[in-house]
């Protein structure tokens, strides 16, 4: 009686393809549907080109307020009435924004797809946006930002964006805005953004689930029929980085038992030519448990619960950042390790076995990532927002399987820029401030945590 010492020899994987889906135009609106048999729940959602990057500077956070206000009462019922109507169907409302999209809709038992889509249409077309409602939603959001930024990770991200991007860049502030920008938003700003951005020509209805007995065209008509369009194409946002080489910002929080570290710089947009090589390289550096950052900071040194890093690629630009929450005593050595790993990758690229693992993981995990209706709906939303071809995910997976070591090495050399690293530390400055000046991380500014 013993253990089996030999690793199992496994068979061939079942072939995988992203679920097939249909594109159609119904009542002038775009509808994407994917039939996934056997699932009791379905998704009906609107994906709109109405993300945060189009917001005016100084009033960032409008898109998120629009998304939230959609479920806060319509011309025919109040916020409570709208919530109850959905919940009695067993429908879960979700509305969110990111840099490049606004998405809202329901996950719902498939038999209630029609009724849920009517509610979705009611929200996007007839939300009342009354003065008192918009004021409440904005004030709730301001309070929420106050709570969020009391967390070290959120406070660090705020300081990082502010230092990496120029003052008038849209990426200078978080996609959800901050207390100052939210406070400057008027009710009319919210209404105007909605009428300009949340329009049928900027929107796509995505329906995913067991659609055997579902009249998809009827769902499309529910959303688009008679919805007036007054879309205005938004200008491309200013996403200018500040520039200026290495520099460090410390947000001083006396008494902190950890330092939240972020190290990085601005980065390329999603459509960067070597996206597959760049993002696979980033997996090796900081995107998996066995990535270099985590092995060094956690598994070798025990400095942190985890260390990760990678690129956030948006439509118009992005960031590269490595991060870890480390115990205060090791702030400087941990920073040195993060920077050293970024430099080592930039300079020397990846090892062959690291590439093998990252490639195998990334290509192999597709069937898991897209097993459920929510994930497939989200994937379809990405296709819409980035204008990807229908075979995008299959193509992406194949390109991951084909990507070569020299391509990763060249991406590392190009897209990692150790000379431009911006370092942010949220922690108790008294423990490390005096040594930070000589740490080679550029000029150091220490700001009190005013929150």
């Amino acid at each position, binding site marked *: *009686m*013993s*253990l*089996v*010492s*030999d690793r*199992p020899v*496994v068979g*061939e*994987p*079942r072939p*995988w393809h992203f679920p097939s889906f249909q594109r159609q135009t119904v009542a002038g609106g775009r509808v994407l549907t994917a039939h*996934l048999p056997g699932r*009791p*729940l379905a998704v009906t959602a609107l994906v709109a080109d109405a993300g945060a990057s189009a917001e005016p500077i100084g009033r960032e956070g409008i898109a998120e307020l629009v998304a939230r206000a959609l*479920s806060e009462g319509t011309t025919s019922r109040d*916020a*409570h009435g709208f*919530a*109850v109507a959905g*919940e*009695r169907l067993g429908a*879960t409302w979700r509305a969110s924004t990111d840099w490049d999209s606004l998405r809202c809709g329901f*996950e*719902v*038992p498939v038999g209630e797809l029609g009724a849920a889509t009517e509610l979705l249409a009611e929200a996007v077309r007839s939300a009342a946006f009354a003065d008192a409602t918009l004021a409440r939603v904005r*004030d709730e959001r*301001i*309070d929420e930002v*106050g*709570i969020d*930024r*009391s967390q070290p990770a959120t406070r660090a991200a705020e300081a990082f964006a502010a230092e990496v991007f120029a003052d008038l860049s849209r990426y200078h502030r978080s996609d959800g805005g901050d207390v100052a920008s939210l406070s400057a938003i008027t009710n009319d700003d919210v209404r105007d953004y909605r009428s300009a951005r949340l329009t049928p020509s900027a929107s796509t209805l995505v329906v995913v689930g067991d659609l055997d007995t579902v009249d998809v065209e009827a769902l499309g008509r529910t959303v688009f029929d008679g919805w007036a369009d007054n879309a205005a194409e938004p200008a491309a946002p200013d996403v200018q980085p500040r520039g200026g080489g290495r520099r460090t910002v410390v947000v001083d929080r006396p*008494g902190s*038992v*950890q330092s939240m570290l972020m190290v990085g710089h601005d980065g390329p947009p999603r459509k960067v030519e070597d996206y597959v090589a760049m993002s696979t390289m980033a997996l090796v550096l900081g995107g*998996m448990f*066995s990535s270099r950052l985590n092995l060094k900071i*956690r*598994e*070798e*040194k*025990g*400095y*942190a*619960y985890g260390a990760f890093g990678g690129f956030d690629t948006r439509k118009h630009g992005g960031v590269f950042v490595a991060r870890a*929450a*480390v*115990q205060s005593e090791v702030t400087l050595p941990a920073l040195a390790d993060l920077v050293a790993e970024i430099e080592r990758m930039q300079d020397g690229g990846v090892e062959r076995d690291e590439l093998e*693992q990252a490639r*195998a993981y990334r*290509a*192999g*995990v597709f*069937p*898991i990532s897209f*097993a*459920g*209706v929510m994930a497939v709906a989200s994937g379809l939303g990405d296709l819409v927002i980035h204008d990807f071809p229908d075979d995008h995910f299959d193509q992406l997976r194949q390109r991951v399987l084909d990507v070569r070591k020299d391509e990763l090495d060249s991406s590392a050399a190009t897209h990692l820029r150790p000379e431009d690293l911006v370092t942010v530390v949220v922690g108790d400055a008294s423990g490390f401030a005096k040594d930070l000046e000589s740490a080679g991380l550029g000029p150091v500014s220490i700001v009190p945590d005013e*929150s």
Partner: protein
Amino acid sequence: MPTIPTYPYSEHRLDNGLRVVISEDHLAAVVAVNVWYDVGSRHESPGRTGFAHLFEHLMFQGSANVARGEHFSTVNSAGGTLNGTTWCDRTNYFETLPSHHLATGLWLEADRMGGLLEALDQANLDNQREVVKNERRQTRDNQPYGSWLEHLHELCYPEDHPYHHTTIGSMADLDAASLEDARNFYATWYAPDNAVLSIVGDVDTAEALDLANTYFGGIPAKGGFPTPPPTDLPARLGGERRRTVTDRIPVPRAFIGYRTAPFGTKEFDALQVAATVLGGGRGSRLYKALVLDRQLLQPSDGAIIDSWPFIGGATLTIADLPAREGVDIDVLESAYHAEVDRIADGVTAEEVERAKALITSHWLHHLSSVEGRADTFGQYATLLGDPGLINEALPNWLAVPIDDVVAVTGEVLRQDNRAVVTFIPDVSDEQEAAA
């Protein structure tokens, strides 16, 4: 109401006592492997709080045929995802894999179930001790409101009860943990006859059972598992308990814990429905009164009040009440209690229908993934002895009559059965001062 699916499964017991639950689902080419061990932080010895969780970390550090670091890299290279978690009643380890890699997952789990000691050493323990201490710092010590859970456990369970302390444990106890503790803990609790293996997904039941036998069959049974300390408790706390914490936080916030009948009881199920009427979803009573009408409570996506699935004598039902800026926490708390007390005047059929529709879709959502289902099979098999309860849970919730919703609210959500932890912002530099 949607059709309620029945999740097919078969249950087996290997000669060494390992329970195996297999459920086929061929919709996607994926499989979830999940091992629940019947050991959690409630089985810890005095002076060793946090040990069950620290030990969980050691299970990822290699075993007889798996080198340090290879557990993660093997699963990732297979295109899989993995993790482990520890809570009061259990420890679970799980991976989701492309289905042709089922054997890889089983081999890895078997190797650490039967062969951990060959890889366990002082260096691994020291490293993971630091990792866990940083996990505690990151999730508790350096988080605003981070101590709330410890306060509720302390207030709701007496000092000699195994739920008195939280799973993350204390820094001093983590420091004291030795290699010998780890060896003893493993020798005591980690055995096929103290575990449930669940396999859910694109597999053939007979083949999966064969593989389970191949990889786990050679691990000897241990038996003789110690009886954990008694957990019996009076049905109620017997008086209101309060604690005020002054800390550097943006807004006041109250956490209210109620002693509640354990997971798996009729009262627990009824309270789930009552809690959803009260605080589940934006159509709930508390959301309407406290967020929409009076604007006292900061809204969030989670439930305002919910119960945990503990089995040891009594579980906890917890309300989380963050105040809006400028709102007096006492005003918020009173408004909350008034709304809870109003349930005694009765609830409508429509309210209960809404709650049950929400419970239904949340349950379907939870079980829509193979990993959610594997974990739930493991939960029912380990905690309540029967994986088949997965198919009874929803019918049980749906069968709760209106009268029971009112009655259970009156029995549980009452002043003499609650502990209230109130966080107050401190503008000075003072650290936490617990009353």
